[in-house]
């Protein structure tokens, strides 16, 4: 600890910038979302900006995919990140990776907006199990590609079920009505599709 420390924010910025010049160092800093969240708890705006830069593209893209409207999608993205700024404690590491948590919260908020209904879950209630750490850009891209491939391998019926349930926010009875399939078939199809995606990520 120095007697006259420089501006902590400036030091943080320097560390993040310099780390990007060396491969291993990227892992040291980029992997640590929790470290950035601790900065957010101290109201470090640079830490929040780093998280925003890291995940806003994913968050916005999911909201846009659901809402199909740039303005509404940005509203959802702003709301999600502002909640992180105001209440970073809502995400705790045991709830999985920050990116996965952001994506699920965003999808739920976007579907709520699409269906014009009250938020179905508080962010504090969104607990998920996701081991993938995608703080590093290259790993993020690789996982996205893997996810696209996993979805592309689903049967057309499974793809349609995921489209209607995940991206259009339809209930299982609405999907059954739309597709003409029995309710049980719809339930099984959605579950099996999600399991197939999960298996694609298992070693």
């Amino acid at each position, binding site marked *: 600890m120095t007697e006259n*420390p420089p501006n902590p924010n400036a030091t943080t910025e320097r560390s993040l910038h310099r780390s990007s010049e060396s491969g291993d160092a990227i892992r040291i800093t980029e992997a640590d979302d929790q470290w950035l969240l601790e900065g957010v708890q101290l109201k470090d705006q640079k830490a929040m900006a780093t998280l925003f830069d890291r995940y806003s593209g994913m968050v916005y893209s999911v909201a846009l995919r659901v809402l199909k409207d740039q303005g509404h999608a940005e509203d959802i993205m*702003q709301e999600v990140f502002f909640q992180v700024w105001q209440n970073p404690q809502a995400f705790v590491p045991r709830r999985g990776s920050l990116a996965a948590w952001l994506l699920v919260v965003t999808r739920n908020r976007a579907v709520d907006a699409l269906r014009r209904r009250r938020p179905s879950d508080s962010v504090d209630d969104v607990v998920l199990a996701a081991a993938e750490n995608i703080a590093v850009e290259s790993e993020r891209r690789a996982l996205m590609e893997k996810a696209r491939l996993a979805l592309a391998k689903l049967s057309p019926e499974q793809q349609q079920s995921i489209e209607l349930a995940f991206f259009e926010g339809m209930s299982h009875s609405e999907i059954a009505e739309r597709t003409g399939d029995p309710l049980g078939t719809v339930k099984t199809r959605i579950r099996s599709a999600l399991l197939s995606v999960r298996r694609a990520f298992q070693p």
Partner: protein
Amino acid sequence: MTDNAHIPAETLALHALAALDSAESAAVRAHLAQCEACRAELARARGDLALVAMSVDQRPLPEGARERFLGRITEQAGSASQSAPAVVIPITAKPHAKRAAAWPALSGWLAAAALLLVSAGLGLKIRTLSRQLDATAQQLDAQIDHNRHAHQVLDLLTAPTAQHVMLTAGKTPPAPSARAVYLAARGALVLEASNLKPLPPAKAYELWVIPASGAAPIPAGLFWPDATGNASVVMPKIPWGVAAKAFGVTIENDAGSATPTAPIVLAGAAPAPGD
């Protein structure tokens, strides 16, 4: 669906998607409140949803979205700091009933003093945390510099395009030679060899650590010279804390050997550590 029977995974997946009807959803919530196993399965289903979300094609943010967000948090941070003085309790003078008001006034001052103390304590805490953050960042900086330097050294030693030049006293024909750098306490070893003769098929050079204790030689890595006779062994997996008496290189089958095979083609006695 009862408290004793777990919720089917299919139903939990639909609950994660918010795709259940409201009555079903309420029943699931009631069960989840008291069932750890079903909460865990729901968490897994939400993990699956995150994977589906990752499949979405990336779109660029609308122009100015970043600035709008940063402006919003700056504004919020500013208003939060401006609202901080509001915790000061206003003390108003009461001209009448002075004696009766004495204790409430005193308690008001005490409360204000307590608040000031708490504020000072919080301020100190924030400064301490900021300094800790700064110190951590500085340590990280130092570590990054250290790692970068180590990488540069390793890159130099192992780069196939690096020039290896042996300086000698006169026009002596180049002879096979090697230089080993060894740190017993960390089990760290780097060997750089030059002018090695080409190997017969299915053979490899093998490096050996000869322990000072008289124990059996320890294999420390196989290596093959390049076209110009250069080769290196960098940080082989060897035990830590073995004091070395010497190092040797033999020619072995390319799968390696547990014991050195004569002849020893290169050898060197280890000086005392630090010499």
